[in-house]
Structure formats: structure tokens, C-alpha cells
């Protein structure tokens, strides 16, 4: 990116607040963000809106590094937000990282 690193990292909770293979939402200025925790304890964050028909991805089944949308079963990659073939679409990713067991999210300004 063009060095626009004006984002601030916000502490939004502890890793253990999210069940493994699950997600919780965070209300942000850009709308609800889904924060996922996978089986291997990686965290990912996506806008909580499926590229197909805005299904709430936070409510989907998490498997591997993907989530299956609860409305019509599109499979969205957690790392890139891209829908698995043959579906075509993309959800915005939101920067997120772990510091120890705290979850830091950079959503909005």
C-alpha cells in the first residue's frame, strides 16, 4: 500500500472470548466486522457481509481457513476474503493481529 499507515490498532478482546472454529462480531465505523478464530488459533477479520447476498459470515461454519456463509453456502477464504470457485466475489478483509492472547483490530481511522 502507499504507506497510508494511519490506522490504529484497537484491543477488542481476548482470544478466548471467541470459540475455536467460531466468530464474534465487532461494531466499527465501517459496520460490523466478524473476527474469526480457527482450529489452529489463527485470527482473521472480515466485513461481516457475504459478497453474494450480504449473509452474516460471523454466523457461518468455520473450517480450515475458510468460512461457509450461512445463507447459501458460499465458501469464503478468511485470509483474502475471496469466494471459492465457482462462485465469484470478494469480502473486504480487515487487519487484525494477536498480541499475546489479546486481539488487536485496525478498523476505521
Amino acid at each position: 500500500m502507499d504507506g497510508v499507515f494511519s490506522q490504529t490498532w484497537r484491543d477488542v478482546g481476548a482470544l478466548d472470548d471467541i470459540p475455536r472454529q467460531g466468530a464474534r462480531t465487532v461494531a466499527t465505523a465501517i459496520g460490523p466486522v466478524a473476527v474469526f478464530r480457527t482450529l489452529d488459533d489463527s485470527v482473521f477479520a472480515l466485513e461481516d457481509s457475504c459478497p453474494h447476498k450480504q449473509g452474516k459470515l460471523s454466523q457461518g461454519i468455520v473450517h480450515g481457513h475458510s468460512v461457509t456463509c450461512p445463507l447459501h453456502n458460499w465458501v469464503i477464504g478468511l485470509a483474502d476474503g475471496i469466494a471459492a470457485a465457482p462462485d465469484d466475489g470478494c469480502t473486504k478483509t480487515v487487519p487484525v493481529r494477536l498480541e499475546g492472547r489479546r486481539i488487536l483490530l485496525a478498523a476505521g481511522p
Partner: protein
Amino acid sequence: MNMISPTRRRLVVVGNGMAGIRALEEILERAPQAFDIVVFGAEPHGNYNRIMLSPVLAGEKTFADIVTHDAAWYADRNIELVAGEAVVEIDRTTREVVGERGTRRGYDVLLLATGSDPFILPVPGANLPGVIGFRTIADVHTMLESCRPCAHAVVIGGGLLGLEAANGLKQHGVDVTVLHILPTLMERQLDAVSAGMMRADLEARGLRVLTEASTKAIVGEDRVTALHLADGRELKADLVVMAVGIRPSVALARAAGLAVGRGVRVDDAMRTSDPAIFAVGECVEHRGQIFGLVAPLWDMAKVCADTITEAAESAYEPAVSGTRLKVTGIDMFSAGDFLGGEGTEEIVFRDAARGIHKRLVLRDEKLIGVVLYGDAGDSAWYFDLLKSGTDVSAMRDGLVFGPAVAGAPTAGVEALPDEAEICGCNGVCKSKILAVISEHSLTTVDAVRARTKASASCGSCTGQVEALLKHALGNAFDSAPRIRAMCKCTAHGHDAVRAEIRARGLKTIPQVMRALDWSTPDGCHSCRPALNYYLLCEWPGEYRDDAQSRFVNERMHANIQKDGTYSVVPRMWGGLTSAKELRAIADVVDRYEIPTVKVTGGQRIDLLGVKREQLPDVWRDLNAAGMVSGHAYGKALRTVKTCVGSEWCRFGTQDSTSMGVALEQMCWGSWTPHKVKLAVSGCPRNCAESTIKDFGVIAVDSGWELHVAGNGGIKVRVTDQLAKVTTDADVLEYCGAFLQLYREEAHYLERTAHYVERVGIAHVKAKMVEDAANRAALHARFLFAQIFSQDDPWEAEAQKASRFADLASVE
């Protein structure tokens, strides 16, 4: 970053339809970075599969199902989509196009793909509201809006489009008349015999067909009300659909001074009279010919992309196309010169009893035309023979009976060239299918469909896709077990997985996955819910349910709706309720401002539009009034419908309501392979519809008739009678035993109807009617499992309210 490079040429596409976007895909495949691309589309959305409008009209598909390129597709490729704005001018001197709202874009290369317009008969009244063509999704919406039962529609034109429109409208209970100017229907695809059979089939479905009917005028005040025929007859009409032909959409090209005949004239490289402007699709005229089917468009798109990107020098060669009518239940295929004439010979086969007619037309020992009616299963084989110009003299005797009898040396797909198109709806060719099969080691038609969309639209090429799989996998396909794998994470089928769970004592999902060599670390959305159920069923009381492996509805104990809110359905035992319960529901509705309250088809009340974070409070309040979860969301016991029965009804022979309540109290909370619905009727009038339920009970004077494996859903199936019993206790025992047998033997997501069709009712009877000891054992296992499943999930969840709230808020 997407730098706009000054060296990139500017490509503007006018027409956001099937041909234009296909050409764009071909261009991007050859030269992904060569152009800055702008697409203008008069329709206000991305691209969709126009040929599937007929199934949308018939209610078999939704618009979402047929969208092929949504806004994200364009965005991901940095294509600017100007949707909902028609181009009204091309300025060839400045090389600019101008949209109707004033949007201007310059081009180096311009591609016209404006398609065609429905031809509107120039009769008085043709411009009244309610008179439309059949071309766009907007037309379909207009038609659907007129679809009140008892409404009258007149479809002018008995060709492919007209008949599909008529059939679609009929599906919605509309009274439909088809007018055709000629004596026989679909004269461009059918001979007189098959046209007669088609007419009889359509009339049997309730369509009225008037041939040699010519329209004189359409009448109405502010909208159409009737149609007058030239012979003086008057037809009532709330809707008139004109399907009398199409005209290439050439106004824009003509105004720009391009060479235009019936269509925009193009050379073999798809170039118009201006070398910077190309055209593809139904708007073109090529060697004097115009087009009306999709197959030629795919070839045009390839040639055009070759030329524009200079990837190759190729030339468009017109080829024969085949046609099928997309009316479910009518199987026909037609291609080539099916009428024949001088110098041709005909082979005709007719089996009136089965409604089959086949006509093959040969010239010089080659197939030049074919019509199949009633059984078009071999259409692909005939079509290949026709296109390839194969000499058929050796197999002539058996030709009309299809490849099996004709002893064709290479029957079907193996013999096809790589570029042969298998799926016409989605333009997928043989080499593409073979490539994905080998690249991803695919073994099922479903998998090929998922990767390529081949056979995903009308499905008529499914057989060919399967044949390609067989061809590609050879023995591997034949030896491949007939058993379907549970999902792509494993090669094991459902039965094998259940058997292993039992035999090896596997107790958790990760254990199963490890023991059975799952190919993924934690499965997928198909296998995890199935495994969770199998373990729960196998180890009652021992297995700890895995919420993360449940579909959202079961995890949230409420049904997710399209806007992300939920619906909540409390149980109403046997369809009974009380003032207290109704008052509690009313209070909850007021307190949480629940927008919709609906009586369901299952005799209870649905509260729709509850927000996720409200769920625990809603449940708590309902619990307080004594109500529990109705499991309307679960693969679980749903409703037990009852009628009033002997308590009130003058015909009732037994107390069906109390029996329903008793059954529901015994069965509620049970998790099952798919949802389970029960009903109890008080007499054979069957007001509770017991004969389309998973377990249905009908009271008779001498006791109770028990029925199983009915289904009122997608495909209605009437129950099989299981037994006749005399006591109330028998009813409960048979019910418990049947549900347990189903729980133990069915595959996940298999309704009782499908399960019983698979194993046979005789098997069920042997296990639980003839074998009383086994029935008692099954019933006992059911009751044992119920000990662990009959606690109200709402009560438990309401304790963990924080789970339903946001993790944090960083506004």
C-alpha cells in the same frame, strides 16, 4: 496496486449480455492486462444467463441462481460497469461513446453486443401497458406481477420462446392461451407429427392453443383487457406476451453510419465496416445470416477475442445449432434440416403409446437433420454425427434406436474434438472439463459442475459430463465404489463412517477424522454437521455436542432470515395453545418490537425479525410463560399436527389431539438425520394430513393406522402404511421404534421418505413390525436417548447471553 498504464488501450463494450461478456472473458483470458475496460449495459445489473429466464418465470429458479457476473466480478477485474445506462451515440471521429445520462468514454477498440429486441406486432393497442415482449428479467417480473390465479394471459407466438412463456405463466395458475399464426407449433424446430404431439402435451397441462389465429387488435382503457382475433373472436387478457420473433438491435450502429443489413454487418473476424469497431452476438449479420441461439455466440466471442488481442488469426464459421424446449417434462430436441426434401431420405420411428417420435434426415449417407420428441436422451450423439458429417451407412439399420443398438464404434464423447461444446448454457467445452478433472482429481459430476458450471443450468448435458468422467477415469471410474463419498474431505460414504464410529468406538469429530484419514484439518460445512449427528446418535449421554459443527440455526436455536435477523417459534403441543401463552407471545412481541407474527404451516406461531442480541431475552420471557423451543430450526422433531378429533368433531373416532400431544411430549428434542414431522388425524378424512408426514397416525373405529415416510415438500410422497394397532401404547412404541430405526440407519440430511425408498418398506417392517422384540429394543434406545435431549435449549442458552452480543464496539 493497479497503476493505469498509459500504454493500455481503451476497450468499450456496449451491451452487458451473454455475447459481450463472453467476448470479454475470452479477451481477458488472452490478454489480462492489455485494456482499460468499460462496459455499458442498458439493464441495471451485471450479466445473467438469459436462456434461464424461462425457468425463473416457471418458478424453478430465482434470479440470483442465474446471475453469472455480479458487480464484484467487474470490480475484481477493474472493469468499469456503467449499468442501467444505454449508449445513445457513437462518435467515430473522436472515438467516443455517449450514454443516455451523458456518460462519455473514449475508446480505441469498441465492441457492440447489443443483442436483439423482441418484435412487437404493429397492431392497434400494442403499446398498452400489459403488452410486453419476453427478453429481460424485467419482463419476467412484469409477467409475475400479473400472475394472480384466474388472471388471463395471451401469448402471441407458438415458437420456443412463446411456449416457454406460456408454460411459465401456467405454473402460476394463470389461464393461458397461445396464439400461433401457422397450423403447427414450433415449425422451425418440429415436423408436423411431433408438433401435434407437443400440442397434445401442452393441452394436457391446461394450456389453450389456437393455431391459424391472427391478432387484429389489442384493446383496453389504461391497460390491456382483451384481444381481438381476425376471425372476430375475443379473448380476455390481463397480459399479452409477444413472442413472434426478434430483430437485431441495430439502431445505434445504424446512426453511427456502420454497414447494417438485417444486423450489424461483420466479416469473418467479427469486424464491422469500421476497423476499430467489432460486433458479436444477436446484433450481427454474418454472411447474410442472423442468429437467435447462444451456441454461435461462444464461437463469435473466441474469434473476436483472437482478433482484438491479436492472439491468433481465426475466422468465424457458422455451424448448426440444436434446440431444446426448456419446459420441464417435455423432452424434445431438434437440429439441422429436419424437414428434408429432394435428395434426402428419412428414417422415422414412432411409439405412440409411449409418446415417442424420432425423425432422422439423411443425405448422401450423412445425417443432416434430426427431431426427437418424447425421448431426447441420445440427442448429443445424433448432434455429433450431424456436426461431424460422419458417414452413417454402416450403422444405418440401428441408427434410429440410438448409439447402443447402432453399435456405434465410438459412441459419444470420446470421439468429440477437444473444443466440442458440452454445456451449451454455460459454454463449457470438452477440453476444459477434462482439464479440471485431471488437475483436481475429480470423480463426480457434482464436482465438475462446481468447478466449471457445466450441467449446472438446464442439466441436459449431465449425461455427457458423466461420460467424460468415465472416459477420463477409465477403470478408476468403474471400480470407483457406487457409494458416494460423504463430501470432498473423505472417500468414505455415510454408512462406512457410521460403521467405523461404532466398531472402533470413535468418540469425537477429530478422532473420526484422524482414524479415517480425512484430507482436511477440520472438515467442511457438509461433513462436520453429519459427524456431529452420527456421534450424538451413537453415544447418547456421552458425546458432547459440538456447537461449532452445527449449522447456524441449530447453533442459535432460531432460524436465520435473509437480512441476518432470526425467527423464533415456540412449541405448541399438538397445535394447542391457551390465552396465557398467547398473552405471553403478545407481550414479547410488544416488548421487543418484533415486526412480524405469522401462523406457520405447522400449526404454531412464528415471531420473525428478532435481532441476534435479543434472542436470549425473548427466550427467557417465553420460558417464563412455560413455553419451550419448537425446534423449527433443527434437524429434529418439528411439529405434531393434529385435528380436533373425537373430543369435538362429529366424525372423530379417537382423541387425536391428546394422542398428538402425547407423541410430541415423547419425541420433542430428539435430533434426527433430517427434520421429522408427525400428524394425528381423528378419522380417515385426515384433516391433519397424516399421509404426507414422516410418521402419520389416522384413527379408525378399531384403533389406529400408522403410516410412515410421507413428504409434503419438494416432491410430494404419500406415506406407506406400516401397521394397524389398537392401543395408545402401541402408537407410542411404534413411533419411537420407527424414529430410532431412522436415526440409526439414515444418512444425514435424508428425510424418512428418501430413507425408506432406499432401504425399502419391507426392511422397515421386518425390523419393527414383524420383530416385536426388536421393536421394543429400538423404542427403549429411543427413550434412553431422549433422557439427554429433552432439556430446553433456550433455557440453557439464555444463561449464556453474552455469546449473542458483540465482542466489542470500536465506533
